[in-house]
């Protein structure tokens, strides 16, 4: 008996061993077989250009960029010269994807062939593409400048001869940033290879294919590589600020500077590799800060081109006056007593779509927001899925006891259920401020709603209506959570709620982004801003909805007035709950160029912000009309220049080449934040392991009962 027991134990162990091994083998081979055959090297990442593709060498074009900027007061006129260099023995067509600042109004492009200059014409996007393709086929030299996204453009050249160069020169107009007494301008020089889903940019997929210099092929010491490769940028900036400067710095690039009276000149020390943005900052001497500045221009910069022969009516000269106003609201001293308390309503979406990483991020964001409260503030937390529930029926003061309560409440939140956003918005916007909710100096409190969601809703129009109806004195700030939030909805909800939209993509960004938002909105200076003439009529100004101004933020607005006569304009608003107004007389009006471009660009920005599936075609038409009228490169219009004489006899065989962008400095290839949705479960694996274990158990049972084939014999001989 004893022997049998031992023996059987051994057999059993062996049996199990075999079984476990074979089971493991099954799983292992299944997994191994499943690994993709075609994509074995895992180094291929988005945007990386491989040199040899489909048995054909992809030519990389060399590119030389020369930037010159003219800063005059608060305006900046920039000219960018792109020199396409062909070092090969073949005819090439070149293409370069490059970024420009978001507020750039691109209005001119020239193609330079040797000494010849061909001015670019504005055409609707499709027509411009056709013009360019026709010229390409006919062997003519041509260039095309297109907008791909708000801040990403492409320039293309056709029929670039062997060992030859073509120069595309484009110009744009922008305003200088002015914040906290610090002027700054930014010239982007690298495109981050990351995709932000934006519904407003319905662009051709091909068009945005940025070719990056593959860091695995070209080592990082780009300076050692011959000048034929890589994008070199030279920069020259003339600054006529109108006052003496206190400091002038470039943040990321070495510069040389010289002064001549109040004119400053900055240039790069040699040429720089285009792998990080150029940022220049300057400060005025104390007391020289402008409180208001106005610029004007009569008529358009570009007269309407292209229709002079078939449309006589357009010859009438535009006599409108375009003006640009920069106004610094009176600064409010921030002392202990002046601090305005705020009522912070935090709304968190706990619907099922938030489950996973999103809810973790949102909870963290809530905790940081709560931690930033001061003792003069009150707060409340609203959670919603298909039901809406609140931390407390009335807002709580930020005492340590209440904060502890809130933290426990946050910890208990779980993502589950449906999304009924309307009741939550109503609950958040209900004015809970007590009439006597004032601070020590009798100033009324601020009411700010921070709304955290992934925006997965179906009834958007209804929600916009709700927000604009119920907003009152509250301000709505939306925070987008998760890898692919419905940012279109949230951006527009925030605009309607007179707040801002913040996007948090990664867990590591939560703290920084939330703190930034809360600090910025701590102290609004000017609210309910409006513009009107003395007789009460409203000028044609953009942006049409002006959001609140916070500490040290200037107000920028572009105005179009019908005639030579400049009427004074009243700017009104509320400071600390009290009515405030300032009359702009335009007495100190400085003539400037390119103001009409800024006006048109501001209007296009506003139009595209409110674009949706229903209004899309109409907005596109409006943008196209504005682009054509003001000679601007927009999402619907492009600039194209074509030489008259064909030069390339073999235009059919011309090879397409791309200029490769550098990866932004410090960026790791393959470390992308956003991924496609996970579309697999382990259900089949569980089933397989489950059935295997079940089989194993049954076999064991049979063995115990000695019913396995062969066992009976052993039993008999023993007996």
């Amino acid at each position, binding site marked *: 008996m004893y022997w049998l027991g031992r023996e059987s134990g051994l057999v059993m162990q062996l049996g199990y061993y075999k079984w476990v091994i074979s089971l493991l083998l099954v799983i292992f081979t299944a997994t191994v077989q499943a690994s993709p055959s075609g994509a074995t090297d895992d180094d291929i990442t988005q945007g990386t250009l491989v040199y040899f593709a489909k048995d054909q060498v992809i030519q990389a074009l060399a590119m030389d960029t020369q930037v010159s900027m003219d800063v005059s007061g608060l305006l900046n006129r920039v000219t960018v010269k792109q020199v396409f260099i062909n070092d090969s023995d073949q005819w090439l067509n070149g293409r370069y994807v490059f970024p420009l600042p978001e507020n750039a109004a691109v209005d001119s492009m020239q193609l330079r062939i040797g000494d010849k200059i061909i001015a670019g014409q504005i055409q609707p996007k499709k027509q411009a593409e056709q013009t360019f393709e026709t010229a390409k086929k006919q062997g003519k030299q041509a260039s095309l400048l297109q907008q791909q996204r708000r801040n990403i453009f492409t320039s293309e050249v056709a029929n670039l001869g062997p060992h030859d160069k073509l120069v595309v020169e484009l110009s744009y107009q922008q305003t200088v940033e002015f914040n906290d007494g610090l002027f700054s301008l930014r010239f982007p020089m690298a495109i981050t290879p990351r995709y932000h889903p934006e*519904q407003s940019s319905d*662009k051709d997929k091909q068009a945005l294919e940025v070719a990056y210099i593959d860091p695995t092929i070209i080592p990082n010491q780009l300076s050692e590589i011959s000048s034929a490769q890589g994008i070199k940028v030279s920069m020259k900036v003339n600054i006529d600020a109108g006052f003496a400067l206190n400091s002038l710095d470039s943040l990321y690039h070495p510069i040389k500077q010289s002064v001549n009276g109040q004119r400053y000149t900055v240039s790069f020390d040699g040429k720089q590799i285009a792998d990080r943005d150029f940022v220049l900052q300057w400060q005025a001497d104390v007391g020289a800060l402008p409180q208001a500045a106005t610029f004007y221009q009569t008529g358009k910069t570009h007269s309407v081109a292209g229709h002079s022969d078939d449309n006589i009516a357009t010859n009438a000269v535009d006599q409108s006056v375009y003006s640009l106003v920069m106004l610094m609201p009176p600064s409010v001293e921030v002392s202990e007593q002046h601090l305005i308390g705020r009522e912070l309503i935090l709304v968190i979406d706990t619907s099922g779509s938030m489950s996973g990483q999103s809810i973790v991020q949102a909870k963290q964001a809530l905790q940081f927001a709560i931690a930033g409260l001061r003792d003069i503030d009150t707060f409340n937390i609203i959670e919603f899925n298909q039901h809406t529930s609140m931390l407390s029926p009335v807002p709580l003061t930020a005492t340590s006891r209440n904060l502890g309560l809130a933290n426990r409440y946050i910890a208990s939140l779980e993502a589950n259920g449906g999304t009924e956003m309307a009741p939550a918005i109503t609950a958040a916007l209900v004015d809970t401020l007590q009439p006597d909710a004032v601070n020590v100096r009798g100033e009324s409190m601020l009411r700010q709603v921070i709304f955290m969601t992934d925006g997965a809703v179906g009834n958007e129009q209804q929600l916009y209506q709700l927000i604009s109806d119920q907003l009152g004195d509250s301000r709505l700030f939306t925070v987008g959570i998760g890898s692919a939030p419905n940012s279109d909805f949230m951006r527009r909800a925030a605009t309607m709620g007179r707040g801002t939209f913040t996007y948090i993509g990664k867990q590591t960004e939560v703290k920084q982004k939330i703190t930034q938002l809360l600090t910025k909105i701590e102290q609004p200076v000017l609210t309910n801003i409006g513009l009107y003439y003395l007789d009460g009529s409203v000028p044609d100004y953009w942006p049409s909805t002006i959001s609140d101004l916070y500490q040290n933020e200037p107000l920028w607005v572009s105005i179009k007035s019908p005639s030579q006569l400049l009427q004074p304009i009243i700017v009104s608003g509320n400071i600390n709950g009290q009515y405030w107004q300032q009359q702009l007389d335009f007495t100190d009006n400085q003539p400037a160029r390119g103001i009409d471009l800024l006006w048109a660009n501001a209007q296009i920005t506003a139009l595209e912000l409110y674009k949706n599936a229903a209004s*899309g075609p109409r907005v596109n038409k409006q943008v196209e009309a504005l682009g054509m009228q003001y000679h601007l490169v927009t999402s619907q219009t492009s600039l194209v220049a074509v030489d008259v004489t064909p030069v390339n006899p073999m235009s059919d065989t011309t090879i397409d080449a791309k200029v490769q962008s550098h990866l932004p400095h410090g960026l790791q290839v393959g470390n992308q934040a956003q991924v496609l949705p*996970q579309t*697999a479960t382990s259900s089949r*694996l569980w089933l397989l392991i489950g059935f295997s274990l079940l089989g194993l*158990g049954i076999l064991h049972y049979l063995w115990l009962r000695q019913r396995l084939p062969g066992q009976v014999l052993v039993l008999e001989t023993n007996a």
Partner: protein
Amino acid sequence: MKPSNTTTHLWIMALIILLGLGLIVQGGYMQAKAHFAQFLIERAFEQTLVDNQPHKPWSWADTHPVAKMRLLQHNAQGTQALGPDLYVLAGASGRNLAFGPSLMLAGAGVGEQGNTIIAGHRDSHFMRLQYVNVGDMIELYSATGELQVYQITATQVVHETATEVLDQTENSQLTLITCYPFDQLSGNAEYRYIVEAKPMV
């Protein structure tokens, strides 16, 4: 010695069988959910077709059906439907994907101009994508009952970071996403199988 030994064996056996049953229940639950939820979703979709209002397939749901999809394949016997009809939910969250193929809200809506993107699980609803060929047709019925027929123009395998397949396009297009390879058992896939289809006029 023997009784205790037998008891141990019984215990081990019971444990293994329980564990096996547990895993079968878990895996089977996922499959069953994917399979049977489609009936509830179908019912909600039928209601939507009648009154043009979004209906939740079950009362605690976070989503509603937005489309009905049918894959058509050409072969010797003519045109045949590949698998039963699929009902598409709004929002490609992990939770929705467990019940049905889901429409990504970052893309265009069903029947809208632009890139309409639908993701689905490779081990349930979109398992059939491994059999489609370029030239096959996809019928997509919107919630208003309108039919758009698409023809498959390309299939490709991409890395999960290749988010350019989500880019908006000027012309209408249907993009189906599922995990790749189809016969991999574990749940964490690094590659995606992309089916691109253009509307037929």
